[in-house]
């Protein structure tokens, strides 16, 4: 069996799984799986860039995804003029001051000779800067959050026309990539060039911190109060249901208008996401086969030899780390667009970081097609494990008496089958097929 036929078989299998889901349960679920599968595939492409090309171990994907979601809010929501006039300027000034403090400290560190003087100057700049920053920042935040806290209480976004300008959300996707890239640059600058585990731990940390910021900084994106009703690039279901032509067309196909409208909206999203995935896939594929991609793999396989050939290993690592994180940010912005809301409380590392890792490893690290395959396959599994687990539990417990504690417990715990299954899948693949379903060529 050649590679191409094998790949066809794999993707045919995925298509069969999704169509099967559609036939057995509902088409709505099937197309939801496709949409999230597309997003997962993009995240997996980003991680594959870092791990498959360069051997960088990033366990902060959740943070970059969340930053993408933040970008979706900041770009697509209408601004809150009252909040801006109340304290917006102070908040922005404070942020600029904070940044200036850090830049000042770095400049002082570079400018002064090593010694006690440098340490003292740096500490003075940092401490003084921090207190000035807090003084300006706290009053500004209090003023912003006091404005209409039930519905707003934050600065809003940059979209001047609200829901009429739904297309602006698409601009948020690359912006999400930029935000994620910025965070990745800071992390990469400190942790790259040290031993490989350090990057893992540093990224684990930054992800937790980004989530903490999103949860607590209400002025930014309302924190755990969530931003709901993001403007969106696709039409609203209710508009479709009210449009005579759409209802006519739906009934022509024999579907009732409500189902048809949800399906149609999701199909539009699927189309948009497919375009993004294709663009990123083609770019990643070009990168993999370019001299740059070969250099990356050379660095991955033998850093010492690559360094001896005059390659700047740390700089190249930083480059690819930023690129990969940016792709995760894009996917995060897309996901928030699809959800129509930013809910910082729902970001969990197991779902947004480690699941993506399972996708990359299972699909085949170092192979873009593999990452895409893993994205779809594992996402399908993640969604379907719960009903399948419940079914298995029902079969196991069918012999037990009604109300028996073990039976109740097993049925209640079926929801936790997901993590277990993912762990087992990851370990099995790492052990018996470490190169994944579609190995690197």
């Amino acid at each position: 069996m050649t590679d191409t036929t094998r790949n066809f078989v794999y993707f045919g299998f995925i298509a069969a799984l999704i169509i099967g889901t559609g036939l057995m349960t509902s088409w709505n679920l099937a197309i939801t799986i496709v949409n999230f599968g597309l997003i997962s595939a993009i995240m997996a492409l980003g991680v594959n860039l870092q791990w498959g090309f360069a051997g960088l171990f990033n366990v902060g994907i959740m943070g970059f995804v969340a930053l993408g979601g933040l970008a979706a809010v900041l770009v697509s929501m209408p601004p809150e003029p009252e909040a801006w006039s109340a304290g917006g300027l102070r908040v922005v000034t404070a942020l600029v001051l904070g940044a200036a403090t850090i830049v000042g400290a770095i400049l002082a560190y570079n400018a002064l000779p090593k010694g006690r003087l440098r340490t003292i100057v740096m500490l003075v700049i940092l401490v003084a800067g921090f207190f000035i920053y807090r003084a300006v920042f706290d009053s500004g935040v209090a003023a912003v959050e006091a404005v209409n806290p039930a519905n707003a209480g934050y600065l809003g976004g940059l979209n001047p026309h609200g829901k009429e300008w739904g297309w602006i959300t698409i601009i948020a996707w690359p912006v999400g990539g930029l935000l994620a890239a910025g965070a990745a640059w800071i992390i990469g600058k400190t942790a790259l060039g040290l031993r490989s585990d350090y990057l893992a731990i540093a990224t684990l940390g930054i992800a937790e911190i980004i989530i903490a910021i999103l949860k607590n900084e209400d002025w930014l994106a309302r924190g755990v109060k969530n931003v709901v009703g993001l403007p969106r690039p696709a039409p609203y279901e209710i508009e479709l249901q009210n449009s005579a032509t759409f209802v006519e067309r739906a009934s022509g196909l024999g579907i009732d208008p409500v189902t048809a409208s949800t399906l149609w909206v999701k199909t539009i999203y699927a189309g948009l996401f497919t375009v993004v995935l294709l663009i990123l896939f083609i770019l990643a594929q070009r990168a993999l086969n370019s001299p740059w991609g070969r250099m990356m793999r050379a660095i991955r396989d033998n850093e010492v030899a690559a360094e001896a050939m005059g390659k700047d290993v740390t700089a190249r690592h930083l480059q690819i780390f930023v690129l990969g994180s940016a792709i995760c940010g894009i996917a995060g912005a897309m996901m928030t667009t699809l959800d129509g809301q930013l809910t910082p409380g729902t970001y969990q590392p197991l779902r947004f970081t480690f699941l993506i890792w399972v996708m990359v490893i299972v699909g085949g690290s170092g192979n873009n097609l593999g990452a895409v395959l893993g994205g779809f396959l594992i996402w399908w599994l993640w969604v379907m494990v719960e009903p399948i687990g419940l079914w298995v539990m029902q079969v196991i417990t069918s012999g037990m008496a009604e109300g028996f504690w073990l039976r109740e417990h097993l049925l209640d715990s079926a929801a936790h089958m997901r993590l277990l299954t993912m762990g087992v899948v990851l370990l099995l693949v790492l052990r018996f097929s470490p190169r994944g379903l579609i190995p690197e060529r």
Partner: protein
Amino acid sequence: MDLLNAFITLSNFVLIPAIAYGSQLALGALGVTLIYGILRFSNFAHGDTMAFGTMATILITWGFQAAGISAGPLPTALLALPFGIAVCALFVLATDRGVYRFYRGQKAKPIIFVMVSLGVMFIMNGLVRFIIGPDDQRFSDGERFIISVREFKALTGLKEGLAIKTTQGLTVITAVIVVALLFYFLNRTRTGKSMRAYSDNEDLALLSGINPERVVMVTWLIVAALATVAGVLYGLDKSFKPFVYFQLLLPIFASAIVGGLGNPLGAIAGGFTIAFSEVMITYAWKKVAGYALPEVLEPAGLAQLLSTDYKFAVSFVILLIVLLFKPTGLFAGKSV
């Protein structure tokens, strides 16, 4: 100015909680650092190993409570602890047999081990949620306080009270005993010496006839014990919630790295460094400052540097600073 009251307030809200938390972190970081020293990888499953051991202990505690066995004023969990350690040790040894040993045989790169430990983490996390559920569990019983605020005030006649929870006292005492035992073991016994030799130079240790599988097995046993003790103490002091244990991974790693990965002494120093910074930076200093400073200087606000929600940020920033300026940690651990 009232320095005595200031000191009591400081002890009550900063020193005592930070010492207890620091002991818990130190025990956790010791586990991470031992795995790093002997098996040479960062074990991402450590937080969940702690959760697993704690879960086993909680289940046994409940059994004891139902059977009417108690430890008097001390929490019943102390009686259950050895059994919890045994269960955790069995599980950890099984994962080593089933999972890690294969990669040791292959001489896989450390990063592969880290990935494998991710898989183990998933499984442990899933098992814990499966068995005991994802919710909060409280399992401390017995006397709540060694000395409560009211008793302290009556005793000393001071305006401010000082409370020491039983769990806090217990944490520190247990930690001291465990660390003393560990250091005795590492420095004085034959097996401990062979472990250090293996950690220093694998090839040389093999040449001198040290059995690597035995060293690895002993390491896992010690790690299981350390993780279970750390987890149970943390659970007694606060409460048991699987997700929180996963999140502890960050301060624990930060402690181990700040102290110098692979260096047990460093792990302890790192644990206290992280704990004290976390508590001191997220504490509202208004009350202490009110006592300690002359009235003119009294702060108007809460004098809190960061809100408690950002306690992870503290350990993270310390981690970054150490990585930037002293990547091998304060106590020169291994690098690369």
